Structure formats: C-alpha cells, structure tokens
C-alpha cells in the first residue's frame, strides 16, 4: 500500500473521534469541520516526511484546535471580538497532554457527533446524508452519487440539514445513563437506515450504492467498540454483516433480483458471515433480546444453511413471532408468513396474511408474496391478479421483472392443458 493510501485510511478512521472532540471545543459544526480539514492538510504535508504519529486522532485534534484558535485570534484583531462562550477551554495548558492520555471523552464525543445527525425533525434521507458527510467524511459528490441525485441537490440538502441541526442545541455536557441509552438507540436506527439505503438498491445501482452498506458496517463496528457490552449493538452489527455477506449473490447479470432460495450460496462472503455469527452468538449470551438481535438471529439461520432445504424454518417462524411482539408491524407478519408457508404450507400462510390486505394495500411485497402462495395452491387466476397488482406497485424495474417471471411461469403452466384460464 502506498503512503498516501495509508494516510487516507488513517484520516478516515480518526475522523469521528477528531471531529467529535473539535465539536466539543468549538461547539460549532462548521468550525469543527474546518479545523479538521486544516489538520488533514497539515497531516498530508507532515506525515510523509516525519512518519505517522503514534496516535493520529490526538495529533489531528491538537493541530486542528491550534490552527482554529490562531484563525480566531487573527480575526479578533480585525473584527469585533467573538463571544468568549463560543470557545471553551482554550487556555488550558494541560489540555494537550490530557487529550492524549484520557480517552474517556471520546466515546461521548463520537456518540454526540452521530446523535446530532439523528435530529428528529430531519427526514431519514437528510439524517443519512448528514452522517455520511460529517461523520464518515464522504464528499458531497460521493454522497450524491450513492443517492443517485445531482451534486447541487445534495449540497443543498446537506446545507439545509446542517442549519436545522445548528438550531437544535444538543447539549455538550457528558450525557447521563438514560440519555446515553436514548442517543445510542437513535444512532443505531440511523446506521440501520444508512445500510438500508444501500441494501434496497436495485440490481443496476447495487454496485454504486454498496459503499453505503460498507460505511454503515464501519459505523456499527465503531459504535460497538465504544459500547462493548450492548447486545443490541452486537445484534445490529451482526445483522448488517450477515445481510451484506449475500450481496454478491443477490442479483443476476441483468440486475434482476435472485431470491434467497435461488442464490448461489458459494458467492456468500464467508468472513463476513463468520463475524456476524460470532457477534450474534456473543449477544445471545446476555439474554436481553431486542429487535436487532432477533433479525440477526433470523439472518444467521439463513447463513448457516448450506443449502436452502437445510434452512431451519421452524426456528425462523418462532423468531418472527418474537419480533411481532417486540415490533408489531404488518410487514413483520408478512415475513413470518413466508416461514409459515414452509413449515405449515401455503394455506396457513395465506390465512395469516389475508387480514393485512387493507394496511398493505400499497405494498409491492404483499401482493408478490400473496401471489406466490396462491400459485403454490394452484389458484392461478387469483395468483395472476395478485401479481398484476404487484407489478403496478413495483418500486424498481428489477422488482417488476421478478414478478413478470412468475407470470410467465403461470402462462407456461397453463398452456399444456391447451386453454388459457384468463379473465
């Protein structure tokens, strides 16, 4: 690896801690970001000559802080004095040393930085964009590309989100235990959103969007290193790893969806699976279950099955049952019905989802799953109606193509009998 690649990786990994600490000093996101940028510029000059520092994050915090303070002092001479309250702890001579030795702040610094992006007034897409910009340090161009929007539109979205966040007054004191737990769960949800944004991509954009999944995994690992004993964070990380492990097998060459049963399991990433299984194993020992752990446990059962027919559907049915209690939602019930169809057959599964129709009347997957159950029961006309409905609701061309494949099969199956059972 070249020197610059090493420096890039070091700057990326130090970023959350450094920006988090600079934000604590300056209490202003723009100042903190600018200070970090300036420190990075100096690192690019200094590190290749002098070698990397022992603790890159501490180096960046110290240099960033000094540069920003110099800037503020210089502008003081030219302009009216800024409010002293806007700059905290500036004259503490011990601070440099303390920063290097005392890592206890840094957990809350990073958590605060992530938490700021989860402002409840911000729509999900803005939370994600902001986190990718501020915490991960992706460029606006990279984020725009992942979101498939223009750079100008993304720039505007991030600027607006930042303004909203600046008004939010997130407290800078060390949070209490309850507040910390609340922050942690908001941040976990945001990381899950980032992942889903990448994971829900269609086949033709999966490649472009997979960095979102990788970034979510990196943030989840970071969070887990800060909060080592939180089973739900272990569960979240495991869930993301196990889902992402299948990414190479999820689409065919034309970008069409390949369902779990039909995927080439040799394409699944074994080391991500090993890590995911190790984490869910670790989480379960705590006997404090939660939605991420349950979802990860379901993903783990799929990952453990070398062939689709080895899948433990009975256990998956039970886990979805547990998830229904923790997080009641028609979508969870719909997923459970798929497991039920494998364990107790399509009739039982169909009965289970019938009551959901009203609430899922605009949901593509509802009609796709319903059509599949009806097809298994040989009720082809009704299946066709459900599939037609699904196509009308499809969000991506890959989803539509997948349903069309079912319709084609129905068509073929009805032909040998020589008559078309259409309406």
């Amino acid at each position, binding site marked *: 690896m070249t020197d610059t690649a090493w420096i890039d990786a070091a700057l990326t*990994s*130090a970023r959350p801690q450094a920006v988090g600490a600079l934000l604590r000093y300056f209490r202003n996101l723009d100042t903190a970001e600018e200070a970090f940028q300036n420190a990075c510029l100096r690192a690019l000059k200094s590190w290749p000559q002098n070698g990397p520092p022992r603790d890159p994050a501490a180096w960046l915090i110290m240099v960033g802080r000094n540069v920003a303070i110099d800037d503020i002092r210089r502008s003081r001479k030219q302009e009216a004095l800024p409010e002293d309250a806007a700059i905290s702890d500036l004259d503490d001579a011990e601070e440099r040393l303390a920063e290097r030795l005392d890592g206890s702040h840094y957990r809350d610094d990073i958590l605060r930085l992530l938490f700021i992006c989860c402002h409840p007034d911000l729509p999900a897409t803005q939370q994600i964009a902001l986190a990718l910009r501020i915490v991960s340090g992706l460029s606006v161009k990279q984020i725009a590309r992942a979101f498939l929007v223009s750079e100008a539109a993304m720039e505007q979205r991030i600027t607006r989100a930042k303004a909203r966040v600046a008004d939010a007054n997130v407290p800078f004191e060390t949070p209490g235990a309850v507040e910390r737990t609340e922050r942690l769960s908001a941040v976990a949800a945001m990381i899950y959103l980032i992942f889903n944004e990448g994971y829900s991509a269609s086949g033709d954009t999966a490649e472009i969007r997979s960095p979102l999944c990788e970034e979510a995994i*990196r943030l989840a690992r970071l969070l887990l*290193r800060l909060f080592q*004993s939180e089973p739900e964070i272990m569960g979240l*990380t495991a869930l993301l790893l196990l889902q992402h492990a299948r990414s190479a097998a999820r689409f065919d060459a034309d970008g069409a969806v390949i369902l779990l049963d039909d995927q080439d399991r040799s394409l699944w990433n074994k*080391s991500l699976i090993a*890590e995911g299984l190790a984490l869910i*194993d*670790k989480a379960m020992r705590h006997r404090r279950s939660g939605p991420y752990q349950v979802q990860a446990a379901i993903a783990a059962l799929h990952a453990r099955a070398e062939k689709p027919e080895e899948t433990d559907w009975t256990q998956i049915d039970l886990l979805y049952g547990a998830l229904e209690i923790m997080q009641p939602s028609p979508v969870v019930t719909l997923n459970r019905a798929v497991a039920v169809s494998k364990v107790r057959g399509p009739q039982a599964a169909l009965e289970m989802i019938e009551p959901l129709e009203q609430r899922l009347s605009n949901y593509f997957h509802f009609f796709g799953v319903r059509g599949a159950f009806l097809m298994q029961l040989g009720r082809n006309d009704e299946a066709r109606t459900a599939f037609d409905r699904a196509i009308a609701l499809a969000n991506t061309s890959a989803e539509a193509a997948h349903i069309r494949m079912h319709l084609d099969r129905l068509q073929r199956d009805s032909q040998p009998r020589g008559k078309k059972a259409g309406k």
Partner: protein
Amino acid sequence: MLYAILCYNDEDTVGSWTKEQDAAVMTKLAVVQDKLAKQGRLGPVARLLPTTAATTLRKDDPPLVLDGPYAETKEQLLGFYLVDCKNLDEALDVARDLGAANPGGAYEIRPVGMFNPGSVEP
C-alpha cells in the same frame, strides 16, 4: 526453534481499508508465506476477527466473563490455544477448564476469521 510472530496494528485504520487495499495487502503477505511454506517452515497462520467479536474471561473465582478484548497492559501475552468449538459458550467452557488448571490472569477469546494450518514439523 519455533517462533511466534504476533501481529499488531491499529484496528480502526485496518478496518478503514477498502476491499481492494485489504486484498492487496493479503496478496503481498501471501508471497512471503508461500516462500516459507515451500521451505517447509510455515506453521499455522491465522487472521483474527475484529476485537468487537472478542470476549474476555477473567480467571477470578468465580471466573468473570466480559465483553470485548483484554484491555489491561500490566499482564503480558504468554501463549495461545487454537480450539475448535461450535460456539462461544463451548469456547468459554474450554477457557474455564484451562483457568481452573491455571488460575490468575485472563483469557481473551477471539474467533478466527482466516486460518491456514501450515505444515511445519518441529
């Protein structure tokens, strides 16, 4: 004499490598490993999963299981075992047995991500 070479690096940085960067490092290492293997000098090689997957068993009485890697620095690394286990509970049982035979200190239990058994015969 067999020598163990223990690998240390900043996990955050290594974790920030792209897939391509990681693969490039592994390819370069494989060249060195191949050379040693051809000479019959390469023993087991393992790449451990990240420390987030680690659990620590403090050999107190009774032994205490903690999440995360072994964090203290006043003890030194004195040796290691590789044991085939179905899951973490089984690995912890093994560690407890070992701990009962030799109290004091701690065991860090880390799943192995990549393993090459090697072929050296001491």
